[in-house]
């Protein structure tokens, strides 16, 4: 990696977005998947 290529300090930018914690966001994504599989099962039956 050449020095000076990336101007931004990256490591300290690991903040959660203001609206939810990361754990809550992950649960939303996985919960949506569970709901989609349940819907797919309902459609198939």
């Amino acid at each position, binding site marked *: *990696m*050449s020095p000076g*290529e*990336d*101007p*931004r300090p*990256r*490591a300290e*930018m*690991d*903040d*959660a*977005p203001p609206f939810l914690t*990361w754990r809550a*966001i*992950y649960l*939303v*994504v*996985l919960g*949506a*998947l569970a709901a*989609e*599989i349940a819907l*797919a*099962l309902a*459609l*198939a039956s």
Partner: protein
Amino acid sequence: MSALDWCVLAGTIGLIVLYGLWKTRGPTSMGEYVHGGYRDRWLTIGLAVMATQASAITFLSMPGQAYEDGLRFVQFYFGLPIAMVVLSVAFIPRFYRLRVLTAYELLETRFDLKTRQLAAFLFLLQRGLSAGVTIYAPAIVLSKVLGWSLNLTSVAIGAVVILYTVAGGTRAVNQTQKHQMVVMLGGMVVAFVVVVRRLPPDLSFGHAIAVARAFGKMNAVDLAPSLGSRYTLWSGLAGGCFLAMSYFGTDQSQVQRYLSGRSIAESRLGLLFNGLVKVPMQFLILFVGVMVFVFYQFNPPPLSFNEAALRRAAATSDAPRLEALDAQHRDAFERKRAAVQRYTAVLDRGGAAQVAAARADVAAAAAAGRVREEARVLIARSGPRADANDADYVFLSFVMANLPRGLVGLLLAVILCAAMSSTASELTALGGCTVVDFYRRSFRPSAPDAHYVRVAKLATGAWGVLAVLFAAFAGMVDNLIQAVNILGSLFYGTILGIFLAAFFAPRLRATPVFVAAILSELVVFGLWLATGIGFLWFNLIGCVAVLLLASALSASGRPARSGPGR
């Protein structure tokens, strides 16, 4: 195609490309060229990640696949949201911490140069082949529909993509992809609305779904615990998760998209947006195909959706047989339509026994009307390269025949946007990887950054020309598209195994991992040749094989002592 359609098509493609070029200045550093100056927000990243994965094959083949085989392909994507969470937790912070330009750069930090370049080489090999197919697959269909030559269509797609990828690098790609993805999603919603509105007015949406179910097209989940079955809930969750982890976590064409974020949070949100939206999007595309199927239960479908191939077969000595088949096909359609109408009539007012009997009649009428399969045999023998499988033409044939003027151009723009967006990501990733992982690392390590940008642009253009050439000659290889689709799964598991060893197995050293990766590739290829295991499972098998073999080699001691890595 009408003049209005041509205007919509040319206007959509031209405006998006010009906007991308206008918004992006020529990159001056490799950070700008490869990661777009690290300025993108999560929505741009999410849409760019989705546009990279959504090739034209997605929009051409998937509705046709649903027409033939129902919704079951959606299971392929069930593992993707899980993979997005794993990548957000485990991969993105590591990429950021080491400030890498390519994913493979990280492997040298953790292991050694040969492991880095092995993974980069596997990427170049697999992605270089895929780039040609990404152009070839839509070109072969569009050329037949538009009446253009195959080579002209390939060159037209390739030239536009090369223009803006070379000029603007990743930032131009991401900016154009954002708009291309909006066109793609909007186009599919329009197609869905149009096909539902074209159904008979007395057929409710619920009845349309019931008709699809009577033909077995609503089979979105298969719970069979079979390794040989290609798409089941289990292969989708396990194999699909490992495939998505490999593709999004180790394929530079995707890593490049989300590392262009202005922060880790933006990159993570972009990937998680993809995890949230991907399954519904693929479901919509497949559902459009199912609704097209229902449409053709009330409107006569052609004997083959590949009209050019049908015309060619009709010019041979098989013409009388094809005419007879066409008559049989129309009779079978009328009988089937009558059975479907009886079925929808009893759905509301009939008892359970009547509904079951009417549904059985539909199934019997469908089974009796398999005339298209014989037509496929005649088409297949009409010429050495006759494309008898017409599934890829179902959606486009429906669009050309049934959409109003203007919307035909929009749907063709969807397909071209998809071809361009995935090709653009591939070309910038191939060019960047060639320079960062090979040219700069092994041939000219201390040149000014502007030199590397120039070489990266040249490399991107060269990969683009290679892709167009490959597309031009791709038709000479039989079953190429299927071969290249499977190729990804044959390599991805091994590459993911190397990355998981780097992240989660601190005791594993460079040489055992390098040797294990090569042995794992041999194991995967051996199993692929010798068994009937569904290809999705190879993502899991290759990954686990790398980890187990590397552990065994490390435990044996000898390879570990020779390893230069940590």
